[in-house]
């Protein structure tokens, strides 16, 4: 980003956004003999794609009267200059992988400049200023030069979220530190484990040493034949103790590991519940599941590795190394010869052979996903007669899995014997060198035997130590991904000064709302509307016009980008969300029922509701009678997503659920679209009774249901185009009138057929 532009040539203090801090002379030269040549340039911004889609600089220059785009490549034509006087508007237009700034002339969009999305944020600011210049408003240099808050102002790295500390620039709690903070809870268990390990290692060291005494002092020189029994008994005792310790370790380790993974899983789930709906738009549920299940498992593996593998191995190598040099330093040096091979071999394993596992895991998870997809859609498969194709698709997946498995197994299988050979090599060297020393009497036979014993325990841990860096990488990645979730600010958490709302009246006001799921692509464009407590409001509009989005904002599943939503005159962002949602009930087009009984489903929002309340709500929602026909009445279990009920029945249950909460504001989002006309009318009548004293917002597909609404808002392409009651809107003969016309034609067709 550039600051403080200097005056350059004939141009007076333009604000320059680009890779250089003044407009290149070549660019300015190209303005000669154009309408903009004598104008003061107010603003210049560099883009990076030319008209052919090649990466070439193109400059957008905004003068006082004209705007023009100038390619740096000399023979490419200018775009413009366009006089502001003839333009209608400017906008930012996304296409696939790039974005452009368009100027509208006579309502036709012309592309001014195109750029990779890297510059999207820059040109978003530029477009705002272009509009200001067009309206003869002064440009706002501070708004233009403002740094993008999604990126670190120091190093340019993207931030975990807008304005958050940069991971590169702020050295915050290292992963290991945090892991150990979690493990700290289990410090006594860990200490016990550790002590067992030390004891185990000491016991491991014992047998070769005893063997040495046995060979040298009992069998060889025969100086202490009476030791034989004691030595053998000691060996047996050591072995017994050693196995005993193994048993203790095997009892302790899973406790530590599972205690920790349990802890982390619970925290993860807690966190995931706190995340907003917008978060779930962004992430794939599959990847979240893999975190809760797999990544935590990797951490478990790591704990086992640290406590049983890594530490033990490190200590073993240390102890054995010391012992070898103590027994005979010269011979100990020969032990070191195969070490490079062991290390190289291990690295080879991790870099070449281990990655085959990734492929295997991938195909494994793909197979699972495929199976899940087919089985949950089995009815579709059968209806379309695609069993054959699904079978062959499945077979292909299975074959792929098999191939991946073969590759893993054959490579690992070929690798292991080679490594074993190198491990064995060490022993052979010692046999030879040590053997000569024994023959020449430099060392005793017992020492050689002890050496061979220790070597057997030496190389294997070395190999696993070489793998340690990879364990660490894996562990670090897994825990980082977990911490990424745990560290996420709970989006639904309320502001620290959020206020209680034990009771609300139910006045709602939308004030100039702007919102887009993708902020560069607004869905709602400046909607303002006012609803008084107790009113019956209808919202209509084509599908995709933004009706559901409006409701999503009211429920604070998403926050508005511009404007405010007020309930009882207070910005809804100031309320505690859970409390606010208690006063709101929502019935969706797609009824969502949980596994459980009918009663549990109806009482979902108020588990403490009495039987009678449940019955009343059901009666009101017109589902009582069909429920009574079920074999176990209200205790009939429902399958996954309410399997066993018709669409209309499910919908009525979800209406009962909403009613039971006795909300101040009841929202029906196309709730009755999938119900037949007859039950719709019954529900409608029920709603009229229930609706007394509540604010009722109903988004209706069938307009006939809105005849009695106090007011109807018509939304089109994210804007409010009409409002009034049914009669008024019919009188206007506008959008609503046309929609009604279409529907009554369809309805009469319906009757005829």
């Amino acid at each position, binding site marked *: 980003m550039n600051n403080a532009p200097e005056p350059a040539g004939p141009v007076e203090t333009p604000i320059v956004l680009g890779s250089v801090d003044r407009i290149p002379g070549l660019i300015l030269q190209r303005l000669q003999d154009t309408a903009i040549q004598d104008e003061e340039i107010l603003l210049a911004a560099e883009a990076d794609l030319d008209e052919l889609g090649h990466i070439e600089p193109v400059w957008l220059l905004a003068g006082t009267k004209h705007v023009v785009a100038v390619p740096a490549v000399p023979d490419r034509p200018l775009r413009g200059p366009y006089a502001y006087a003839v333009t209608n508007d400017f906008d930012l237009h996304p296409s*696939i*992988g*790039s974005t452009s700034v368009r100027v509208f002339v006579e309502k036709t969009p012309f592309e001014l400049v195109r750029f990779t*999305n890297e510059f999207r944020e820059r040109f978003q600011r530029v477009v705002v200023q272009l509009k200001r210049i067009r309206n003869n408003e002064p440009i706002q240099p501070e708004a233009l030069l403002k740094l993008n808050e999604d990126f670190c102002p120091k190093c340019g790295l*993207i931030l975990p979220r807008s304005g958050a500390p940069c991971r590169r620039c702020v050295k915050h709690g290292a992963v290991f530190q945090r892991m150990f903070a979690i493990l700290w809870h289990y410090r006594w268990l860990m200490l016990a484990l550790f002590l067992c390990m030390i004891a185990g290692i000491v016991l491991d060291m014992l047998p070769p040493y005893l063997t040495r005494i046995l060979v040298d002092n009992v069998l060889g020189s025969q100086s202490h034949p009476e030791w034989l029994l004691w030595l053998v008994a000691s060996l047996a005792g050591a072995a017994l103790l050693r196995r005993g310790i193994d048993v203790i370790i095997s009892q302790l380790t899973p406790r530590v590991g599972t205690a920790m993974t349990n802890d982390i899983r619970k925290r993860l789930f807690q966190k995931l519940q706190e995340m907003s709906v917008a978060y779930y738009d962004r992430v794939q549920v599959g*990847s979240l599941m893999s975190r809760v299940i797999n990544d935590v498992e990797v951490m478990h593996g790591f704990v086992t590795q640290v406590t049983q593998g890594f530490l033990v191995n490190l200590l073993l190598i240390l102890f054995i190394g010391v012992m070898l040099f103590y027994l005979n330093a010269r011979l100990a040096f020969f032990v070191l010869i195969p070490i490079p091979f062991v290390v190289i071999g291990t690295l080879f394993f991790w870099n070449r052979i281990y990655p085959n596992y990734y492929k295997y895991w991938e195909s494994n998870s793909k197979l699972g996903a495929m199976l899940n997809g087919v089985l949950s859609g089995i009815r579709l498969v059968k209806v379309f007669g695609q069993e054959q194709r699904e079978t062959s698709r499945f077979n292909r997946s299975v074959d792929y899995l098999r191939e991946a498995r073969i590759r893993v197994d054959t490579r690992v299988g070929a690798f292991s014997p080679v490594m074993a050979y190198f491990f064995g090599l060490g022993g052979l060297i010692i046999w030879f060198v040590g053997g000569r020393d024994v023959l020449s009497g430099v060392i005793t036979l017992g020492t050689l035997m002890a050496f061979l014993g220790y070597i057997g325990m030496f190389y294997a841990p070395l190999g696993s130590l070489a793998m340690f860096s990879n364990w660490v990488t894996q562990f670090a990645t897994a825990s980082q*991904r977990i911490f990424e979730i745990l560290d996420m600010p709970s989006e639904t958490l309320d502001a620290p000064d959020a206020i209680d709302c034990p009771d609300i009246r139910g006045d709602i006001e939308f004030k100039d709302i702007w919102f887009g799921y993708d902020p560069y692509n607004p869905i709602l464009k400046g909607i303002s509307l006012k609803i008084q407590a107790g009113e019956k409001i209808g919202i209509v509009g084509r599908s995709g016009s933004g009706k559901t989005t409006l409701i999503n904002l009211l429920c604070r599943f998403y926050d508005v980008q511009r404007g405010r939503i007020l309930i009882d005159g207070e910005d809804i962002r100031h309320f505690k969300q859970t409390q606010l949602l208690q006063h709101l009930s929502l019935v969706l087009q797609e009824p969502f029922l949980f596994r459980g009984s009918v009663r549990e489903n109806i009482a979902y929002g108020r588990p403490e509701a009495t039987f009678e309340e449940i019955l009343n709500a059901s009666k009101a929602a017109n589902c009582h009678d069909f429920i009574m026909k079920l074999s176990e009445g209200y205790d009939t279990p429902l399958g996954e997503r309410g399997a066993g009920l018709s669409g209309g029945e499910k919908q009525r249950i979800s209406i009962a659920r909403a009613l039971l909460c006795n909300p101040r504001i009841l929202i029906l989002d196309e709730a009755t679209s999938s119900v037949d006309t007859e039950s719709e009318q019954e529900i409608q009548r029920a709603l009229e009774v229930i609706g007394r004293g509540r604010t009722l917002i109903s988004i209706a597909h069938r307009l006939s249901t809105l005849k009695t609404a106090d007011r109807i808002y018509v939304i089109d392409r994210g804007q409010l185009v009409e409002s009034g009651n049914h009669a008024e809107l019919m009188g206007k003969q506008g959008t609503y009138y046309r929609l009604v016309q279409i529907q009554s034609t369809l309805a009469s067709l319906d009757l005829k057929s």
Partner: protein
Amino acid sequence: MEKNRESAVVKKVMDYGGVGIRILKADRVKIYRDIDNLLYAEVAEAGLETPRLYRGVFAVLCFPVSGPDRYISLRYVNPSGQEEEIGVIREPIEFPREDRIQLAKSLAQYYFEFEIERIVSIEFRYNLLMFDVLTNFGPRQFEMRWRGDRALSLGEKGKVLLDVYDCRYIVRDVSALPREDQALFNRFIYW
């Protein structure tokens, strides 16, 4: 009898009672770019004496992955500001060369992707994957969030990576990358 049934089936597939897509045949459409640098389409429409002229036309692929050479949707922004489809060109190859050049140019503007040819390195740091790659536009470095929704499947064999700015980096066929690049790639992008 047999024959009749067959033709009935064909008819059922073809006939959507005028609500299906409109296929634009080469003899009924003329595409050209005017001095205002906008693309125009002249379409001979049923019931009109003179061809209808569409201004500010652009092209979008219907099947960018499975059939990038066929089925191009011609679209424009209508006077009330809404994007609208003029029709679909089934076989661009049947169009005159000049028209095809204009279509290709329009597509090149609509789609902008870096095609990854080699992978120099991938590092996981600061919770981001740092890519150093060779693309059809030369060497590029980019950063991407390591999340499932940032690396999407591109057909059966490929992947689209979305960097932190939402720029698109594509690998059409992962198995066609050199082996060590593949190993590196699969190490991080394996879903």
